[in-house]
C-alpha cells in the first residue's frame, strides 16, 4: 500500500519535510514497546505507536521501519522530527486512536507483520 493512501486512511498529517507518497509499504505493526518492534516488525513496514520520543525513531532506524504513524494526535518534538528527517523516515500524526487505526488499515488491506496463520509463541 502506498504511503499516500495510508496517510489518507489515517487522516494523518505528514510531519517531516520529505516523504514520498508513492513509497510502497509492505506491512504494518502497532506497538508502544520498542523491544517488540525490534523483535517482530519487518523491514519495510509501517509502525503505529503512541510513543513519540527519539528512541521510536532510533528503533525504526535499526528495524528498518519505512514510516511511523503517531496515534492519538501525538506530535513529537522538533528534535525527533529532525532525526527522522536526517534518517529519511517519514513521520505522520493521526488524530485517531491505535485500535481505530489498526482497524482502518487492516480493513483496507495492509497486512500485519506476521504471515497469515503464523503465531507468536505463548509464554508466561
Amino acid at each position, binding site marked *: 500500500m502506498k504511503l499516500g493512501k495510508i496517510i489518507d486512511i489515517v487522516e494523518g498529517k505528514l510531519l517531516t519535510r*520529505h516523504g*514520498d507518497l508513492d513509497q510502497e509499504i509492505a506491512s504494518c505493526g502497532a506497538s508502544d514497546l520498542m523491544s*517488540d518492534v525490534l*523483535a517482530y516488525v519487518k523491514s519495510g513496514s509501517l509502525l503505529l505507536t503512541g510513543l513519540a520520543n527519539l*528512541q521510536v525513531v532510533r528503533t525504526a*532506524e*535499526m528495524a528498518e521501519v519505512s514510516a511511523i504513524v503517531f496515534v492519538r494526535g501525538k506530535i513529537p518534538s522538533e528534535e525527533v522530527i529532525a532525526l527522522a528527517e536526517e534518517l*529519511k523516515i517519514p513521520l505522520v500524526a493521526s488524530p485517531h486512536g491505535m485500535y481505530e487505526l489498526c482497524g482502518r488499515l487492516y480493513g483496507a488491506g495492509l497486512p500485519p507483520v506476521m504471515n497469515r496463520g503464523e503465531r507468536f509463541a505463548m*509464554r508466561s
Partner: protein
Amino acid sequence: MSEVLKFTKVQELIYELPIERVMRKAVITVSPETSMMELKEILRINRISGVPVLEKGHLVGVISIEDLIKALEKGEIEAPVGEKMTRRPITVRDKDSVVEAVKKFAQYRVGRLLVVNGQGDLVGILTGGDITRGLLEAISLDYHVEEISRYRARHIFEDIVSDKTSLILRYRVKPKDFSGGGRASSKLKRALDRLGAHPEDIRRVAISAYEAEMNLVIHADEGGEMEVEIEPERVRLLAIDQGPGIPDIEKAMRPGFSTAPNWIRELGFGAGMGLSNIKRCSDSMVLESKLGEGTRLEIVVNLRQELSEESVETEKSHEPSSGERS
C-alpha cells in the same frame, strides 16, 4: 522517494552554496571611455551579452547588448560606453548564498548580476546559467564523494593485506542519556552499510547493538563501552560496563524479566525483551556479570558470504584468502 529528495537537495544547495562558488571569476570589463563600436566587438568575440564598466578599478556601471542596440538605432555607435551604461548595476555579495542571487534575478529581471566583495570591488559575474551549472556540479560532486567513500570502504579488506584483517570500532555510551542512546548503534549500522554487508545481517547487528547500547544507558552506573570488531566473515560486539552487575543471569535472560525503573518503561523500554532479542539476532551470545564489578556481553553475528556480483569477481581474483581464516 527520489523526486522529492532531489528537489530538497537543490533547495538545500541554493541556501548552502555561496555565490563565489558558482560565479564566473574571469570577468571581461570595459572602461567608460571604450566606444560602443569597440564594445560590439568585445561582446561578439566573447559571445557574451553584457559587461561591467570599471573606472580605475572601481565598478561604475554595466553595459549590455540592449544598450548597444539602442545606440545603434540612434546612430550613436561611436559614443563612449560611459554615456550609455546603466549607472547603478545590481550587485550581490560573494559570500552570500545563491538564494540571494535567485531573489535578485526575480526582483530586477536582469540578465546578469555583478558580484562584489566586502570592499565593493568587482570579483565576478553571475548569470542564470552559472547558477544552474554550479548547482549541477555541486550535486554530482556530492554524489561522487559519497560513491568514492562507499567504494573505498567496500574494498578495505581487499586493499589491506594481512593474515587476519579486522576493523575495530569503539563507542562510549553515557549513562542515563536516554535521548543520546542509539547513536553508537546508528554509526555502526552506517559503517556496515558502507562496508557492503548484507542488509539482513546489518539489521541483526544493528538490533543487537541497539539493545546492548540501551542496556548500558538504562542500567550501567557509569555507562559503558562498546567495542565492535568487524571481519569479512563476522562481527563481534563487546559491551562492557563497570557495574552494578546482574545478580541472576538466568533470570535476566528470561523474556519479560526486567529490573528497569518505571521512567524507562514509560519510554517504551525495559520490558525484559532486550536480551532475548539479542539472542535471537546473534549467532552466539555470552553474558557474564559480577555484582559490584560489572557486566560483559559478547555477541557474534556471522556475515553471510553470498556477495554481490561485483564483489564475487574480486573474490575470485583473491582466491587464496578465502580459505585462510575459516
